[in-house]
């Protein structure tokens, strides 16, 4: 287990390093951030001064080494635009993004699982065909377009739900959340649904194929031969089996929810780190972009670890194999 964790951490460090190099040089190629930082009518002297102040006058590899030296001392740099600590700005926005991703994940399971199980149990039912057609749409429609349609329909036409922003937040155990108020849920409903769309489709497909496969297994027939009710057979025998792949895949997909939230947050003006990232890219705010990348990579690594642990908790065969080692 320890060797496993060490290997994981080493992999993660390598990924972080690679990402930092790519992002650093990538933003360098895209443009000179100094133009975003000085007023339009700045003199050449003023510009040169800003350049010197931020070290933009040095050759790019020197800039990079200086940056790496800073990072190794725990200093991630200051945002060119906001002035504050880059990592601090990202972490401030992280709860909003995680909250959005989490609610999207819940939507994916709560909506996707029953629909997928139904479609798997009654593959020829017209409703099942509709569900599957819907899941193909969910896969193929672009997220931003669906987001705009959701706003059009639920906010503009029906006026049921707010289209932008986050509801009032409360702090519980040091975590800031908007999920404790009705208003908070009203605000998060549309963006979370938008973000969940792909995952709902994914869960439907996984649940459907898992259910179809499990229903044909001897253990289901044997469960029926015992005289169990369909509710018990589906709810315990089938569900417990199909949950293993679903939990694994969804856990791994949580990272991509965070990544995709860039689009959703921008459409719904959700004050998370995805929206901040997009703004930073527009302004070539390199420290912020690099800090975002590092936070997200760390998030991915942590998620993968948690998924591995959850997986072994769900599947007794894996759990015991580990114990015997």
């Amino acid at each position, binding site marked *: 287990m320890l060797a496993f964790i060490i290997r994981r951490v080493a992999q993660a460090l390598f990924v972080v390093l690679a990402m930092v190099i790519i992002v650093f040089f990538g933003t360098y190629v895209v443009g000179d951030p100094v133009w975003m930082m000085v007023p339009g009518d700045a003199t050449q002297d003023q510009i040169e001064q800003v350049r010197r102040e931020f070290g933009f006058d040095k050759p790019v590899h020197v800039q990079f080494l200086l940056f790496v030296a800073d990072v190794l001392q725990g200093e991630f740099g200051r945002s060119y635009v906001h002035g504050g600590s880059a990592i601090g700005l990202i972490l401030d926005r992280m709860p909003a993004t995680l909250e959005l991703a989490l609610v999207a994940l819940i939507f994916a399971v709560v909506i996707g699982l029953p629909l997928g199980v139904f479609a798997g149990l009654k593959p020829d039912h017209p409703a099942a065909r509709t569900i599957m057609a819907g899941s193909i749409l969910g896969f193929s429609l672009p997220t931003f377009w669906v987001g705009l349609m959701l706003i059009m329909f639920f906010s503009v036409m029906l006026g049921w739900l707010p289209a932008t922003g986050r509801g009032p937040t409360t702090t519980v155990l040091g975590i800031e959340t908007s999920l404790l108020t009705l208003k908070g849920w009203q605000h998060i409903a549309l963006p979370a649904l938008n973000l969940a769309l792909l995952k709902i489709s994914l869960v439907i497909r996984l649940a459907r194929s898992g259910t179809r496969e499990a229903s044909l*297994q*001897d253990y289901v027939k044997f*469960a029926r*031969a015992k005289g169990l009710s369909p509710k018990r057979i589906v709810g315990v025998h089938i569900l417990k*089996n199909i949950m293993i792949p679903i939990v694994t895949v969804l856990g791994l997909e949580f990272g991509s929810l965070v990544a995709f939230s860039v689009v959703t947050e921008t459409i719904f003006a959700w004050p998370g780190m995805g929206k901040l990232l997009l703004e930073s890219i527009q302004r070539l705010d390199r420290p912020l972009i690099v800090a975002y990348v590092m936070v997200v990579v760390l998030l991915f690594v942590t998620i993968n670890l948690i998924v591995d642990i959850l997986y072994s908790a769900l599947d007794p065969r894996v759990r015991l194999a580990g114990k015997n080692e």
Partner: protein
Amino acid sequence: MTRPVLEVENLATHFFTREGVVKAVDGVSFSVGAGEVLGIVGESGSGKSVSGFSIMGLIDPPGKIVSGSIRLNGEEITARDEATMRKVRGKDLAMIFQDPMMTLNPVLRIDTQMIEAVLAHDNVSEQAARSRCIEALSMVGIPSPAERLVAYPHQFSGGMRQRVAIAIALLHRPKLIIADEPTTALDVTIQSQILAEVQKLCAETGTAMVWITHDLSVVAGLADRIAVMYAGRVVEEGPVERVLENPQHPYTNGLIGSVPSANPMGQRLRQIPGSTPSLGRLPPGCAFEPRCAFASDLCRQQRPAIGPDSGGARVACHHPLSRARAS
């Protein structure tokens, strides 16, 4: 004479597939009395499992029981709806499957799978259900049953898993157990241990049993009666001694000839020539005709109906073997 526990009459179960109608079971009749063991024998694909699942009411689309009657203690069960049938399954009627590696749910503990079987039919406390499960496990010869109860299926060997399945089948002391090749997947020593124990348990509890197998030697020592199936039909049925010692149907005779122990040492086994016909394209006459050494024109044109012979058995053949020819 008391009424048989199970009476199957003219049962026909067909599968309506895209390629056509598969008459997996087509006009099968047999009955089993209390405490009696009926062996159903036949090559793979002859409709043995489908007969068993039909009795359990576990035929799924595209399959359907198209005609016939199945009576349990004299009560017709083919017409019952699913909810009523569910009350019978696992309670009066139990079934053991062929592959013990597949019949237990791999992600649920044994206690979960046993206790739910108790609670499906009896309104008892979980504690009471648990002790009944422990009792059932020790009955089928599982050592330290209380500890084994909280294990997962993969922690058991194939033979032990089959014992668990048998314990589950016995939980409600059913009137009838259908055992669908329960020992085929196990090795020979475990097979004979389980056979002996099941026989003992059924004798003790008076449970009637249908033991399905493709291996005549398994039922020889176990069954009271034997029904030989071929291509969805019973071709010969009767008391075990009569069928094994004096087979009247050429197919039964061929099956006996292919059992190693029935042959003198050193003599080659006589395999039945040819293979099982496709159920979709059966010949118009006797289904066994293409493989039968005694086939006549009558056999090619007319399907033989099953009828009583002199020895308390029934045979479906135009030219049943005489005593002289069989020996």
